[in-house]
């Protein structure tokens, strides 16, 4: 159960004046059950990359293996791939169209050929998972608030019970609480169901908190592919490509510069606090 990309290249509008190379020799392997973060500057190829994962875009050259099977092979069942790799686009609420939220969430399962009862059951489950209040199930999706729409749209993909969930900036434009709610929910799902999660984000803090592994994209190529704390060691290089490490990384480096012997590879505020406390206690007991 894994996704493997081999020397993937993608060129938009090949052979015209608008030709643009969006992916450049991308090699990746994403094993089953991992929580992977993808980060990169606007236009670095993140969105293009994830659209390859369920075959919406076909690479100009290179191969993509899902569970060891080449998806570009003649006669490969793309529908099955799309059932297993669920893709939540940026601003997914723009795809809502049904008369009420519940029916909209049923759209995916219905396309999978499930019976109406099963669709309903899955839709209810998905809506519960994303935490949409029951009183909104029968509301028109166009009457819901931005955050509720977002939840409904994510539920629409979850209801298909994908084995791999890909989310393209699921928290863009949400308030801090809505953002934490959705990310916590996804992390919970990941733990509970050993689903592979691929999260595209702009926020280093978010990725640092949740992801096991971090892929940094720059100009269509993979720049780093490692544990978050190892990637953040390169915070100067990250700055050069318009990104930044989490703020705690800077604080820790500053502390070291001022003579405090803390570790610099912490990624979250909680970890940083523990580390500083530990050092201080150590310091006091020694002197």
């Amino acid at each position: 159960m894994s996704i493997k990309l081999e020397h993937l290249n993608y060129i938009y509008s090949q052979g015209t004046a608008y030709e643009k190379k969006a992916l450049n020799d991308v090699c990746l392997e994403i094993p089953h059950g991992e929580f992977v973060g993808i980060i990169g500057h606007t236009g670095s190829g993140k969105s293009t990359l994830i659209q390859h994962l369920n075959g919406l875009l076909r690479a100009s050259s290179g191969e993509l293996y899902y569970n060891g099977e080449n998806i570009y092979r003649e006669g490969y069942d793309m529908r099955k791939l799309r059932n297993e790799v669920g893709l939540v686009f940026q601003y997914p609420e723009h795809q809502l169209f049904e008369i009420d939220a519940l029916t909209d969430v049923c759209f995916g399962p219905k396309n999978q050929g499930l019976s109406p009862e099963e669709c309903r059951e899955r839709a209810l489950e998905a809506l519960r998972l994303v935490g949409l209040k029951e009183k909104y199930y029968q509301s028109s999706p166009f009457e819901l608030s931005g955050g509720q729409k977002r939840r409904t749209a994510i539920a629409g993909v979850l209801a298909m019970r994908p084995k791999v969930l890909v989310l393209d900036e699921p928290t863009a434009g949400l308030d801090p609480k809505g953002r934490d709610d959705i990310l916590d929910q996804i992390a919970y799902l990941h733990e509970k169901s050993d689903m592979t999660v691929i999260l595209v984000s702009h926020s280093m803090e978010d990725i640092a908190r949740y992801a096991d592994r971090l892929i940094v994209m720059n100009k269509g190529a993979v720049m780093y592919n490692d544990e978050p704390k190892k990637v953040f060691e390169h915070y100067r290089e990250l700055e050069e490509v318009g990104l930044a490490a989490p703020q705690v990384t800077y604080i820790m480096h500053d502390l070291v510069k001022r003579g405090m012997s803390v570790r610099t590879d912490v990624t979250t505020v909680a970890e940083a606090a523990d580390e500083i406390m530990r050092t201080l206690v150590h310091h006091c007991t020694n002197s």
Partner: protein
Amino acid sequence: MIRDITIGQYYPAKSMIHRLDPRVKLVCTLLYLVSLFMFRSISGYLIATLFLAAVIRISRVPFSFIVRGLKPIVMLLMITVLFNLFLTRNGEVLFHAWIFTVTEGGLVTAVYMAVRLIYLIIGSSLMTFTTTPNELTDGIEALLHPLNKIHVPVHEVAMMMSIALRFIPILLEETDKIMKAQIARGADFESGNIIQRAKSMIPLLVPLFVSAFRRANDLAMAMEARCYRGGEGRTKMKPLRYKCRDYAAYIVMIAYVVFVVAVGRMLPLHVWIF
């Protein structure tokens, strides 16, 4: 996909033609199209071809790109050619089978009609290839300005046109995005009979309309917020001004028209088609 339609698209390049005033390009295109119907001899066609080839060359738009724009009219072209070929009875009979008769006059008309149509399309698409939609509407607005006198809301029409043109790529992109999102949810836009297919468009069309209305609303709000209130007394940031090259282009164009009409009509080396 949808992006492959090149007709009416802008092709960015740096050329003499691209830099010309949009009014010049509009007027010259119109003159060229009219000129195509002003001559009847093979020498006229030769001159028109040479002129078009020269303009294409100067515009730096690749020929293959232009040819791709002809694809959508292939059907129309075929029908025109076939009608002319079989329905014109003029001159010597070249071929006769059952109800089909091909005469020499028919053959010549068919070929000439096809050439005219192709030049018509190439000529007008050359204008859109070398002129951004904004320049184009500016040009149209300036050219139609005199109609203000008879209370035609020229500015408003031009504004609507530029907004419509501006939104075509945005809506195409939006369609592409929504389509992908629904395909990711297992939607199928390709198989099934015509009713099933029409039904399968609902998940695409509803969000598309919603987004179009939302964008229209936002735009109206933004225009209102900047106190937009129509054309009266409104000045432009980049007013159109004729430069030397624009006058030169007019002169070249007029010289061409005079020449092609004179040669096309008077030279004894001719083939009559009417």
